[in-house]
């Protein structure tokens, strides 16, 4: 298994390098002089020069690139132009909230979605299948901010079951859980929709395989056939989808954090956008790149756990 992980890491490195290069170029080739944007039109030539010097914008592109790569490799992401604090500090402060939200909604998606998909496949065209398909269709149709606004309206404003604003630093675990519930349910619904759908179609495929018929023929009880023989094989596409849609989940967490006013990477990135904090944007893109490469790595490792054939390749 360790050899497998190392090999995967080796494959992930070029991807990370490519993404970092894109991030670097992206911020540089964007039209508009960052110095001008920060200081405004009324800034003097000297002030603009000084800021360019400070940001390293007057160096040759290659030197800037090497600076940037060196900075990332040494574990620094620079300093926020706005707050003057190290970007990594600001990220570390809010990252637990985003991770907490993502993990909670992923859990909702898997714990509800996989069984729902299985039931749906076993009772194909029955009422349970119908209900499951409607749920996943609704989940797929809601843009994350629309469902967030509607959930907030019904459960926080009308029924008052949950707080309208999730406060920043909650020491009380119960209160923290209460403010996590709605945002996690909102994101979980989207994940649930994708997972139910893939589990269903993958299970339908597996259940018609010969070895399932063999298992049934030799008298293995139905429940055992489904959970032991079929599920393990049906899970591989599910893992693929979870891995792929982690990106969607991260994107949607931005919207969810805004609507529920939760601290997190999403609020940080939107704040940086509105304030034109270029260094913060660049740093956050690097963070997102790392998260995505990490997610892909985890997905690959999960394949190895589920399917022994993958490890041997």
């Amino acid at each position: 298994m360790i050899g497998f992980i190392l090999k995967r890491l080796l494959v992930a490195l070029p991807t990370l390098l490519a993404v970092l290069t894109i991030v670097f170029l992206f911020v540089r080739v964007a039209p508009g002089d960052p110095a001008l944007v920060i200081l405004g039109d009324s800034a003097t030539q000297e002030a603009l020069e000084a800021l360019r010097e400070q940001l390293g914008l007057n160096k040759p592109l290659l030197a800037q690139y090497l600076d940037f790569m060196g900075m990332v490799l040494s574990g620094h992401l620079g300093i926020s132009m706005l707050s003057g604090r190290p970007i990594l500090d600001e990220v570390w402060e809010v990252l637990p909230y985003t991770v907490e939200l993502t993990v909670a909604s992923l859990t909702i998606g898997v714990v509800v979605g996989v069984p729902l998909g299985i039931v749906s496949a076993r009772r194909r065209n029955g009422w349970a299948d119908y209900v499951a398909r409607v749920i996943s269709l609704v989940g797929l149709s809601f843009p994350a901010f629309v469902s967030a606004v509607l959930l907030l309206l019904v459960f926080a404003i009308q029924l008052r079951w949950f707080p309208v604003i999730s406060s920043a630093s909650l020491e009380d675990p119960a209160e923290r859980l209460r403010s996590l519930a709605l945002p996690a349910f909102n994101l979980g619904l989207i994940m649930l929709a994708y997972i139910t759908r893939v589990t269903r179609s993958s299970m339908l495929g597996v259940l018609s395989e010969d070895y399932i018929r063999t298992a049934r023929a030799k008298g293995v009880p139905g429940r055992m056939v489904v959970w032991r023989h079929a599920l393990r094989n049906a899970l591989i596409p599910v893992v693929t989808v979870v891995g792929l849609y982690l990106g969607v989940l991260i994107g949607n967490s931005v919207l969810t954090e805004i609507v529920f006013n939760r601290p997190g990477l999403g609020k940080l990135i939107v704040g940086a956008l509105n304030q034109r904090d270029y260094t913060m944007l660049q740093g956050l893109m690097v963070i997102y790149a790392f998260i995505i490469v990490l997610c892909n790595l985890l997905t690959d490792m999960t394949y190895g756990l589920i399917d022994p054939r993958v490890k041997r390749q």
Partner: protein
Amino acid sequence: MTAVHMTTRPPGAFALFWGRARRNKATAIGASLVLIMVASAILAPWIAPYDPLEQDIIARLEPPSETYWLGTDPYGRDILSRILWGGQVSLFVSTSAVLMAMLVGSTIGIVSGYVGGRFDRVVMAGMDVLLSFPSLIMGLLVVAMLGPSVINLILAIGLTAIAPFARIARAPTLVIKEREFVEAGRAMGFSHGRIMGVHILPNVASEVMVMGSLWLATAIRTEASLSFIGLGVRPPTPTWGSMIREGFENILDAPWLSVFPSIAILVVMLGLNLLGDGLRDATDPRLRHE
């Protein structure tokens, strides 16, 4: 003679495809929902009861009534008219973005698959990198860098969808380029461009189109999300996303402000998802004999 020949011709791929798609009730509902929403957006200049930008200070935040069916916003503008006009912006931006992605993506996919070898590997690795960025995050950054205008929005949303189209066009190209008719074309001295455009493209088109209908929903969602964040088409032009944002700011006093545009987005998304699923089932060769 030709008439007889025509009537005895077996149903073509399109007729078969359409027949299968039409038999499915869910697909029909999806198609009708999409059609209604598209028609009402196109007809907005004629059917909207008020000017979507006209402010009426006296009629601020009116709840739904007989004069204002869906109520008014904080500037006294009619919500119904704004939803109808907002549909134009949302649908135009997302359709153009998907068309752009279809064009660029399938060109990349076909050329990459046709050329093959190291070129193919490098191009596809690049597409994988593009694919690894969440579309909303990428759209957010592109618009933030370029500035929010209709063209930049189309570019940003289109860019997020290029990689999946390249992938879906490449897969069948790999199979088709080994077929006899392509070899025959090459033997007859056709140029590579002609082989790709005339012989491979038609065989790839149906899958690209189905994918397009599914991505249209994603594009609408991304456009609305960007507007909601405040990176969409500039106000006062109404878009569904920005209307929900305005409504969200007044959610305690006037919940209808955000509820009605939400319903508009939901109807379109639901319609597109139902339609896309139906089209996919109809083109899926595994379901052909059901």
